[in-house]
Structure formats: C-alpha cells, structure tokens
C-alpha cells in the first residue's frame, strides 16, 4: 500500500466517523483534590530549588575563598628555592684562568719577581726527597 493509498483510506467515511466519535467524547476532569495535591508538589519543588540556589550562592564564594586561602598558605609556607643556591656554581675554564692569573699576580706582588710561595714549597719537597747537588761530599 502506497502512502497515497493510505491517505485516501484514512480519509474514508468509516475512518472519519471513528475520528469524529473520538473527538466528540466528553473531556475528562480532574478533581480539586488533585489540583491541590499538584499545587503542594509544585510548592515543594520550588522550595527545594530555592534552597539549592541559596546553598549554591553561599557555597560557591566560600569554596572559592577556601581554595584561594589554601593556595596562599601553600605559597607562603613553601621555602623559596633558587636553582643555583643549593649547588655551587661549576667554575668555567675562563674563570679558572683568570683566578690563576690573579693568584700569580698576588704572589709576584708579595714575593717579588722570582719564586712564589708555591714554587718554594715545591722545591723544598723535591729537595727533601733527593737532591744530588746538595749532597755533602765531605761528610762521606
């Protein structure tokens, strides 16, 4: 059966009669008690909604404040850490060279041209081990 055939059949007198019969049926009515019960339920639904809204109105700023406070406390109690503070900086080659040059300049200023304290100490340690030039041949 095509759609057109179905439309025609639905418009037939017998089908239309059924439609008219249903349409002419009297309207059902609800009781006053029913309406009163519905009004009560609506009122309680409104009350619940208002309570929730009030609760949310109080809770949301409080929650925001609490979070902000917790964040502030966390930030304050946590010790500020610098990445270079805990570990000594690793000396670079250039800085070592500069430091060595400064040391040598200081030694020169103190001891004059010639030996510096390092060289003296080194020469002493070497001679303490064995120095053929300082052997006392007379004592042999």
């Amino acid at each position, binding site marked *: 059966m095509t759609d057109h055939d179905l439309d025609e059949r*639905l418009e037939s007198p017998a089908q239309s009669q059924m439609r008219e019969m249903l349409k002419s*049926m009297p309207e059902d009515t609800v009781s006053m008690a029913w309406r009163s019960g519905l009004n009560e339920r609506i009122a309680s639904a409104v009350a619940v909604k208002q309570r929730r809204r009030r609760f949310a109105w109080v809770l949301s700023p409080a929650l925001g404040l609490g979070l902000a406070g917790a964040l502030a406390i966390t930030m304050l109690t946590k010790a500020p850490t610098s990445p270079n503070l805990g570990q000594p900086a690793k000396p670079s080659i250039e800085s070592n060279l500069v430091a060595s040059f400064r040391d040598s300049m200081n030694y020169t200023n103190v001891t004059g041209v010639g030996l510096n304290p390092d060289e003296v100490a080194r020469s002493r340690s070497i001679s303490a081990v064995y120095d053929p030039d300082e052997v006392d041949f007379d004592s042999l």
Partner: protein
Amino acid sequence: MELCIGAARLSSGNLQDHARELAIVERCRKQDVDAFGKFVDSYQNRVFGFVRRMVSNAEEAADITQEVFIRAFQSFHRFDGRCSVRTWLFRIAYNLCVDRSRKVDRSPTEVSLQGTFEVDETFDVPDSRWQPDQLAIDAELASAIDEAISSLSEKLRSVLLLHDKEDLSYEEIAQMVGVPVGTVKSRLFLARAHLQQHLRNYLHAEVS
C-alpha cells in the same frame, strides 16, 4: 475570572490567544508559579484524559498526570520552542506512560479488587440532564469506546489518541513515538479499523 477565560481559550487552541499562550510559556520558562498555574489550568483535563486512556486506571492516571506537570515545571527552562508547548507536554505524558507500562510488564501482575474506573464519575455529558435515556445511551457509548480503546495495543492506542483526540499532526506523533510518518498512518488506520470493529453494534444502532 480572567484566568479561567484564558485557560478555556488556550485549551481550545484558539489562534487569537496564541500571543497570550506565548507570554505564559515565556513566564513559565522563568519558573513563574502563577503562570504555570494558568498553564496547568489549560492542559490538565486533556493530559489527564490522555493518560487515563493510556493506563486504564484513574488513580494511577491522576498520579502520572501530576508527575507530568511536575516534570514540565522542572524542565520548562529547557523548552526551546522548536515544537509547540502542547506537543512538548504530551511527549512528557507519553514517555511517562511508556515508562509506567514497562515497569508494569516487569513487575508481577496485581488484580484490583475495586474494578475499573466508574463511568458515571468520569463522563459528564453536558446539556442532557433532562433526557435520562439519552444520558444512559451516551454513557454506554462512551464506556464502549473506552473499552475499545483499552483493548488496543499501546502502540495503536497512543497514535489514535494523539491524532484523533489531541489533534497532533502525523509528523509530531512520528517524532514523539520515534517511528516514520508512514508507520504512524498505518497504526492510525489499524486502530480506527479495530475501533470500528469493536463498536459495530453501536454504529448500526446509530445509523438505524
């Protein structure tokens, strides 16, 4: 007084009151309890009539009808106006009736000791108070029609009531029930044919 007049006109679907209905709907969307009261006045009898024929139990129908309006009130802010408010309301009613029938199918059957609803209380035929015989005939016919409707399957019954009693279009019913328009027409045809078969004695009497 104005409230009642407005309610009566709205329920008849008069185009002149379309603007007023829109205003009421707009206020209902803002959770205005007074406007919702007018809205209930407009539709309570029609929704109750539909639900009562869908569930065949007056007390349960009254509870479901209340639930329909509570749901409507709670979700009015989500009503987007893409369909008419009447279609939207009957969709809520239809869904609740379907939910209820599913629950009944799952639960063990209960036999009521009180019997079905009382016809004399439900049907109040106007302007026939002075014709007791006519009143009796009308009541009997109404009872027979109700019986014929309740003997239909839920699918046929819902389409028949929504189209012939509530004047919803094929497209609206198809969208509500979730079937193609052709299926709605087929169901309507079958439902009317079943009704005609069931009421043939009354129809012959009426013709004669």
